[in-house]
Structures are given as C-alpha cells and as structure tokens.
C-alpha cells in the first residue's frame, strides 16, 4: 500500500483547512444576523441567533436521543431471520 496514490483527504492538513473554512462561514452567518434586516413573522425569530442555536441544539438532541434509543431498539442483524441465507454483501443486482 506504500505506493498508493495520495487522495485529497488523506492529508490531514486538507481536512483541517476544510474545517477552518467551515467555521469561518458559520461565524459569518451569525454576524450577518445583525447586518441583514429580516421580516419577522414570529416573535421567536427575534431571539438572538435563533436559527443557528435551534439547528445546533436540535441536532445534538437528535443524535443523543437516537443513541439512547439504540439501548432498547438495537438487535442482531439477523434478528428477524436467524437462519437466513446470509445474502448480505453478495446481493448484486441482476444484470448481464
């Protein structure tokens, strides 16, 4: 594997660059909140950085709840057919 081609994200610096870029955009979006005048339909929208906070908190809660759901919903992969045909992985489409 030594001579294998180096791809874009094999270099950790590129990942870092992408993330930094992303953080800057996030910061700009929050700042824009003060610059751009919005038409407010609902009073909640007046709250400081309502959409960013809602998006962030919403997704964290989503992931935490989903992870917690795993504790009682997760079963073996072949739960429904314990002596299944083991089609997993070999199930190609039928074609020529």
């Amino acid at each position, binding site marked *: 594997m030594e001579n294998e081609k180096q*791809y874009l994200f094999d270099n950790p610096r590129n990942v870092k660059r992408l993330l930094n870029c992303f953080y800057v955009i996030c910061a700009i979006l929050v700042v824009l*909140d003060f610059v751009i005048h919005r038409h407010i339909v609902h009073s*909640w929208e007046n709250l400081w950085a309502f959409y960013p906070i809602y998006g962030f908190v919403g*997704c964290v809660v989503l992931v935490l709840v989903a992870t917690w759901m795993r504790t009682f919903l997760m079963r073996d992969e072949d739960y429904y057919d314990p002596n299944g045909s083991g089609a997993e992985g070999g199930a190609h489409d039928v074609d020529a």
Partner: protein
Amino acid sequence: MTPMGAALKGVLMMWMLEIPPFVPFFIGALIAIFTRGALRGAIMLATPILSGLHLWGMPEGIHLQFAFLDYQLLPYRVDKLSLIFGYVFHIAALIAIVYSLHVRDTMQQVASMLYAGSGLGAVFAGDLLTLFIFWECLAFTSVFLIWARRTEKSYAAGLRYLITHVLSGVILLVGALFYVAEHDTLKFDYIGLDGIAGWLIFIAFGVKCAFPMAHNWLTDAYPEATVTGTVFLSAFTTKVAVYALARGYPGTELLIYIGAAMTCFPIFFAVIENDLRRVLAYSLINQVGFMVVGIGIGTALALNGAISHAFNDVIFKGLLFMSMGAVLHMTGRINGSDLGGLYKTMPKTTVLCIIGAASISAFPLFSGFVSKSMVMSAALENGHDWIWLMLLFASAGVFHHAGIKIPYFAFFAHDSGIRANDPPNNMVLAMTIAAGLCIAIGIYPSALYSLLPYDTGYNPYDATHVLAQTQLLFFSALAFVWLNLKGKYPPELRSTNLDFDWIYRRAVPNVLQKTFSIIWKVDGALRKGFLVRLDRCLDFIAQKNGGISNLLSRTYPAGSMVMWVAVILAAYLFLSFIR
C-alpha cells in the same frame, strides 16, 4: 408560449388522439416482453418521451368517460393537479429507465413499465373505481421489482409489502362502495372526513402514504428491492398517495398532526440505521411528512408547497437512491459500517450524491429549498407555531441524516479500502439528468411554479428565508462536526433496529403461537378427559346391562343383531307368502 411551441403543440394534437398516458406504458411493457437487448432498451426509452410529449399538448378537461352500471367512469381527467404529477412521473420514468438500461431481466423491465403506467393511470383517474384498479395495479406490478432481487429476504419483504398494499386497496374499494351509497356518484373530488366512506378512503390513502404505524412496508421493502427497482419504487407509490390526499382531503386538520409526526420520528431511526438505502427510506417518510402537513393546512400556498415538494422529492430522492444504488452495484455493499473512502475512486457519484443531499436538505439554490419553504411559511402564517417548530427540527434533522450522514459514511469517513469505480455510463447519465434538474429548479423556480395549481406570487429568495435556512443548516452541520470530533456520534453498527413492524413480525406471531399452543394443550386435555369418562360410562352401563339381560348386553357382537334382524325380516316374508 413561443409560436414554435404552439405549432409543435398543434402537430402533436393532430397526430395523437386523446390517449390516457398509462396506455403507451402498458403497450411499451407488452412490446418489451417480445423484444431483447438494445431494441427493448430503445422502446423503453421512447415510451416516456413520446407519452410525455403527448401529455404536454393535452388541454385540461375530461377526455374519456363511459357509463358503467349507472355510474359515470372517468378514466382520463386532466387538470392542473393531475398534470403536474403526470409530468413528474414521466420525468421519473425516463430517468429510472436510463439508469436501468444495463439491466437484462425481463421480469424487472416489464414490471417497471407496468408500474410507471399504473402510477400515471392513478393520477389521471377521475373516479374512485378507476383509482382502485390502478391502486391495486401499483401493488401487483411494483412487488416484482422487490422480488427481482431474488433473495429470501426480498421474497419475504415483498410478500409483506404486497399484503399491506392489497389491504389498502380493499379498504379503498369498500370506502368507494360506501361513498356511492352516500353520494350516489363515483367521481373523485373533495371527500373530507365526514361519514364512514371518508374515513375508509382516508385510511386506504394513509397506508400507501406511509402514515405512522403504517409506514413499515416502506422501510422494510425498499431497501430489499433491486438497485434499479428502488429508484422506480421511490418515485411512484407514495406520490400517488400524496396526490390522492391533495385531491380528496385538502385542509383536513388531522393531516397537519399526522404529517408533523411523519417529519420527526423517522429521523431518529435514520440516524442509527446502518443500511444506507434504509436511511433513505426513512428520510422518504420524513419528506412525505412535509407534503402531508401542506395538504393539511390546505391554503393555496400550502397546497402549492406540498405539490411542488412532491415534484422535487421524486427527483432528488431518486438521485439519492440512484447514487446509493451505484454504490451497491459497484461494491456489493450498502451498510455504512462496510463503506467509506469511496470518493477516491467514485468521484462522479460522490459529487452527484452531494447535489442530491443538498437538494433534500433544502440548501438555497437547490430544488428542495424552493418547495419546502412554502410549507414552512404556510405553517407559520396560519398560526401553527408548534408544527412550525417541529418542521424546523425535521429540516435540521433531514440535513443531518440524509444530507451529511449518507455522503459522509459512503464516500468519506474512514477508508474502507474498497476501490470501486464509478458505475456504468447510463447510470452516471441518469444521475446527471436528475442533478441538473435539482439545480435548475433551485435556480429558476418560476418554471416549476407556473405548473402549480394556484398562483400565489411566492418568492423563496428573500434575504430572510435564505439567511435563516443557511444558518439552520450550517449549524446542524456544526453539530455533526462537533459530535464527530468528540467521538459522541453513534458509530455505524451491523444491527436491526426495532420499529413498529416488530408488532406484526414478532409480537403478534409470538402471542398467537403461545395462545394457540395453550389452546391446543387445554383442548387435548379436555378431549382426553372426556374420552376417559365416556369409556368408563359405557363400561358401567355395559356391566349393568350384562347383569339385567344377556340379550341387551354389550358383549354380544353387532353381527348377531344383524342376523336376528335378518331372521325377523325373513319371518315377515314367509308370513306374507303363506297368507
């Protein structure tokens, strides 16, 4: 319309009579049975193109009707609502046919043509009986796209799928019969939830629309279908149901709550699901939820939003299913736990998948944005604050699981070591067409808006909407990045997650099995006890009788009785002779 367009339209009108759009598809399927190879491919491609051109020249109105048992049947009714679904079904059929051009499987190819035709038949059906016929056709044709995978799992999933859909059809038929009794007409227009007919038809539509608790046919069957079959499946069945709800139940308040539930609960399952096509199946329910909310609100803006979102969803969900199909086709794997790093050797699929992901997440300049925002605005304008908050949460959630999780775990994440190439050209072409449409509609929404039933003058691109949506999405992404860096993001695990289908796949069979085994045990014991008692009783009587008289004794063989009867009869005969 330009003069050239008008002239072309005129020519089209002349050389084609008013043929309902399902007819060319059914004829195409018939020809496909008897042709092979490239010729079959050409015929399958030509069908949606010619039929689509024909539909484009079709004016609104009722184009076909006849009487059947005192009732007017309208198999071909064209209005703005049915037309827009007709257009998108043609586009979807064309894209899916291009995507499946490499397939050489008569069963699958014929079934897909019949399935697309049935979908078109259903949206142009002007009466409930015709609707019922195509409703059942949809079930019976699409199940072959699942069975064509030819695995035990797909066979079982297909069977469950078929049972659910046939049941939905039967409920629709019963509802239609009640409707005739109540209203003395079969015409399919606004139905509403008063009367038993209204409820029955509502339930039938709801099952096909994947309402909560009736949704597992979708998450169960779609990931088990073939690579190309799922692309067809994702386009038609649920959208026919959305169309039917939009025609029969606009403004039904109950739909708002059902739809909001549909937008929210699947995203939790999608986050922990490993099979990436099943993740997409959950997100399909989530997107249909937005449409159902729009129909429930029922204002012009909300209905426009619901219908245009259905239009866009057919294309971007098709694109996502195509990109995951390409991954499955090229690697033979679809579980997030087995994939990763595919961007290195599948760059085209990666880019096209990201376009689909951006569209479903409703990024500005992509198609989802111009339709979803209408439903959200309508929810807010009509005072459904909590519903609006749920939709906002669902918007963030859909970006999280369909927009980030799908591309991230398939194409990036850890390197799985798989070095699969981009799929065959026809698959790439189909995905490119879909991606082109996603961007085109996103940049120039007026073209789509002009097809909608109402003129609301809505403009999605004002600073408020764009900024709010971008902030929401970027900070959802920030949550993903943060959780991932902290190691808090749930890893992809090989697993089955229990959902409502556990009730009928496990709980009910188990309870029934236990109940029956108890019933059989009790029954066996009772019979045995009864037989023992009967035996004793007979013994007792025989003993008594034996004591009284030898003639009545049980110990005599039956043969002796027969002999004595014969003797008596012979005696009678003898007496009759001598008299």
